[in-house]
């Protein structure tokens, strides 16, 4: 326990503007409960309804994306490390809110994801709306995702979606950052 200094951890979170963190299991009931807490927090912070619902919406898409990806690994023999790797953070940055999510990815899942993110980063609001219209008609895949979540986040965001990749042993830790 000697390195487990909660005072330092708390100070570090505060310096980084971190308000709330969801880390650990991403079951649907936890995603719901934490989302409810996020909304209560933002209501108390007297955020406009539009901004509050935008932060909530980005949180839901991120948490469901993380949860859906982690669940794919439940029956894999080497999946345990991935399953427990998810995190979502709500932070304040000046007048903005930043919602970030992270989880380990298998190396083969990195390129398709970054290709989609680069596509979104290159589009303006009208381009994002046109892409949204096109993807709206594509059916949901076997994991219940339809490729709309990232586009909806990009449409709400005040700046292009940011992401980072960090190699962790044979995996890649993916971080997504959305500013509202």
């Amino acid at each position: 326990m000697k390195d487990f200094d909660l005072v330092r951890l708390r100070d570090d979170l505060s310096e980084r503007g971190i308000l709330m963190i969801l880390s650990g299991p991403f079951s649907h009931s936890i995603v719901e409960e934490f989302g409810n807490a996020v909304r209560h927090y933002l209501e108390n912070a007297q955020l406009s309804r539009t901004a509050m619902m935008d932060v909530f919406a980005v949180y839901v898409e991120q948490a469901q994306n993380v949860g859906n990806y982690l669940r794919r690994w439940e029956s894999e023999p080497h999946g345990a490390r991935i399953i427990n790797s998810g995190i979502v953070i709500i932070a304040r940055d000046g007048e903005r809110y930043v919602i970030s999510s992270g989880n380990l990815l298998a190396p083969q899942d990195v390129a398709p994801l970054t290709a989609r993110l680069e596509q979104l980063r290159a589009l303006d609001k009208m381009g994002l709306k046109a892409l949204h219209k096109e993807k709206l008609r594509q059916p949901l895949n076997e994991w219940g995702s339809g490729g709309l979540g990232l586009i909806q986040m990009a449409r709400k965001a005040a700046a292009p979606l940011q992401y980072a990749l960090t190699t962790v042993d044979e995996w890649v830790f993916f971080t997504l950052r959305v500013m509202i």
Partner: protein
Amino acid sequence: MDKLIIEATRSSPALEFDAETGRLSIKGESYPENAAAFYAPVFAWLKEFLAGLASGAAVQVDLQILYLNSSSTKVMLNFLDLLEQAAQSGASVTVNWHYDPDNEAILECGQDLSEELEAVMFNMVGQTGNLS
């Protein structure tokens, strides 16, 4: 045909579909764990209802949505597509999209969906205050 009544949960809306009056309403938030599974019985009911519709019959749909996640947005388009087909075949279908003007995301979502419809009469109904 029996009414379809589904109670709201934190992540799924309340539904009340009445075949006798032709009035269907969906109220609340939608981000269920599996949108396709949650809405499967809703689509089964709607398909049966629309198949038995008399020609020229009137259908009124009231949507009072506070939040739709991305997969529920797709499901909502599929739902409206079925109504559009009925309207193309001669039914008189009105959809009222009730929104809180302070919640721009839902206003925008209604606009996105209305662009996909032609024969359905789609009304944007702004109401302040009483939607939460």
